[in-house]
């Protein structure tokens, strides 16, 4: 045991003497959380919509008043008056405005006559986010105008009442589990994989191999050190990320314990997987080359960004064996839903079994000689 802990001690001393490693391991996930969390999922504000009014009747005025209300309240868009539909259409095409509303001639008369009144909306659907928001606002305006002033005592239409279980989950909160997993992956990749191969290339392992240390002690020492580094990265990013995203979960001891169990399981799983991949690698360039490929192969199929239910069968098969899937599912279950151990039981079981299983395979592959 002394020999195993000597390896851990050496790795940890090196780790704390090189704070850049820790910083670099966490910098990318924090930046991702900060930039992607703020860039995605926000509301569209200040779009420009052209209004071509060929009617000028009282119903057209109602529409314009509704647009003005939007412009000063939710501020999704402001309106610009056009006199020619073709010019407005061309300006949507060239990006001068984000959409155009056409109020046709006789619109007010058709409303009064209940003769299939309609208004047109020209949308720039090359930008799904903006056009989707504008379409939603336009639909809300149309619904409001269509609703009768005097409501019937008994509603005849079917209503869907939605009950949201959790407080509003903005994109930053949604992204946090993925960022924790990513920080731990980078820590394992740099602090485990790359340093391990670099040490091999520098001859440090040769120094170990001439001592009486056993293969198991050496493997366990290296992996324990790698797992500790990943746990530290996971804890740091959980605390920083929760504060950034405004999540108070870190102040609940029970949830903290659940998160810690997940972090340790993830560290063991990632480290075991990395050790298995690197156990026979000699060239220091290999882990660097693998870094991006592995990231793509493991991160995106995990459901971190999109639900796995939308994947084709082969991608879903990959997500089933991907430790990222269980790590992210577990973190979401605790951080976003406070689901308790019951919600993460399977994730924990998979991560620990995967971690120790990969180590079990890697240990006999580890060469005790050069």
């Amino acid at each position, binding site marked *: 045991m002394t020999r195993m802990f000597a390896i851990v001690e050496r790795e940890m001393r090196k780790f704390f003497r090189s704070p850049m490693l820790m910083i670099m391991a966490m910098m990318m996930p924090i930046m991702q959380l900060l930039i992607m969390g703020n860039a995605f999922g926000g509301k569209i504000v200040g779009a420009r919509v052209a209004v071509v009014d060929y009617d000028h009747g009282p119903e057209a005025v109602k529409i314009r008043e509704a647009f003005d209300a939007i412009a000063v309240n939710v501020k999704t868009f402001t309106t610009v008056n056009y006199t020619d539909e073709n010019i407005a259409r061309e300006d949507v095409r060239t990006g001068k405005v984000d959409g155009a509303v056409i109020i046709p001639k006789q619109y007010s008369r058709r409303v009064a006559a209940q003769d299939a009144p309609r208004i047109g909306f020209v949308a720039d659907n090359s930008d799904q986010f903006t056009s989707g928001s504008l379409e939603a606002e336009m639909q809300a305006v149309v619904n409001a105008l269509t609703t009768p002033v005097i409501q019937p005592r008994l509603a005849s239409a079917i209503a869907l009442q939605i009950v949201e279980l959790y407080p509003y989950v903005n994109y930053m909160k949604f992204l946090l589990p993925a960022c924790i997993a990513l920080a731990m992956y980078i820590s394992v990749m740099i602090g485990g994989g790359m340093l391990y191969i670099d040490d091999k290339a520098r001859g440090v392992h040769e120094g170990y191999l001439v001592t009486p240390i056993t293969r198991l002690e050496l493997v366990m020492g290296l992996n324990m050190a790698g797992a500790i580094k990943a746990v530290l990265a996971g804890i740091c990013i959980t605390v920083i990320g929760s504060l950034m995203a405004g999540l108070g979960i870190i102040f609940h001891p029970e949830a903290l314990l659940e998160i810690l169990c997940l972090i340790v399981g993830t560290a063991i799983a990632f480290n075991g997987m990395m050790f298995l991949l690197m156990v026979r690698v000699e060239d220091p360039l290999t882990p660097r080359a693998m870094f991006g490929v592995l990231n793509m192969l493991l991160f995106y199929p995990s459901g971190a960004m999109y639900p796995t239910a939308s994947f084709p069968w082969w991608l879903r098969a990959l997500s089933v064996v991907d430790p990222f899937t269980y790590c992210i599912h577990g973190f979401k279950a605790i951080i976003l839903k406070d689901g308790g151990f019951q919600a993460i039981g399977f994730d924990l079981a998979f991560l620990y079994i995967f971690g120790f299983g990969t180590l079990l395979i890697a240990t006999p592959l580890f060469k005790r000689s*050069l």
Partner: protein
Amino acid sequence: MMATARANYPDGRPTAIEVAHIVKKYGDFEAVKDVSFSVQEGEIFGLLGPNGAGKSTLIRMMTTLVPITSGSATVAGFDVVKDPDAVRRKIGVIPQALTSDPDLTVEENLSIYAKLYSVPKLERERNINEVLEAVDLIKWRGAQTKTLSGGMRRRLEIARGLVHNPHIFFLDEPTTGLDPVSRIAVWEMLDHLRRTRNLTMLITTHYMEEADKLCDRIAIVDHGVLVALGTPIELKHSVPGANVVEVHFDRETEQWKSRLEALDGVTSVQAESAGYYRVLTSSGSRTTMQLVELAASLGETLTSLSVQNTTLDDVFVHYTGRQLRDEQVKPATFTMPPRPGDKL
């Protein structure tokens, strides 16, 4: 496992290392070919040869780092194949590369290695103090390794190899990359360690001077074969010709080599560069006279002339047919292609 009975040398000292018919193959390539030698306790034994001669492979087999293809090696009485752990406990190894952690302090580097050998805490602290004293790094114990000079780092490597009190010390090219002053300091330190700690040392080197000054006995290895073995004096005496005359003619002609070889007492002539020759002779003074007369009779000028005793360089040339330093610095031969119109 019990150590096997060790043969004693005629002077009573037991054998520390016994290598018998050892072979190492990498696929079809034979890196070490049927090498046998033994090293007695307290001896500094040198493996001399150019890069790629098989020295490091030999040392790696003896230190359990590389499996032996055939033959046997016994270190400190233990078979390296059958009982590698017992061998590892008895040896200290300094690899060719500097492998101490630059981010750790001198003391931390030593402490971690002592722990790898399971040295108990009190003994560990005592040993660290002793080895730091021995390699003169006591003032630097708290310094980060990356702040040390190359010579000091090499001394730290040596201290690291000694921190568990080994009986046998393997050093793979311990002075490679050091400046001449640091190199001499390392030689003195190793000699001191041998005397004070009664260490057996096996050193690989491609420096003739290092082998000459430091080693009690030297084995010359070339292309995986042990070509000569003996004390430096024995090896020098084994070469025909007691002296080396180095002569530099003003002008190079094709006949110099054959003319020099024809002189009385000359055993071999080696062309070093244009007009520069190393002549092995049984009588330095007589050959010098003949050289002066030869140059005068041909109307040639001698730029320089020196006489010295046979060196290990000459021994190496004698046994391998080429110079050791040629292997390290020989530039690629390049012949200019003929110009258009030149007669071929």
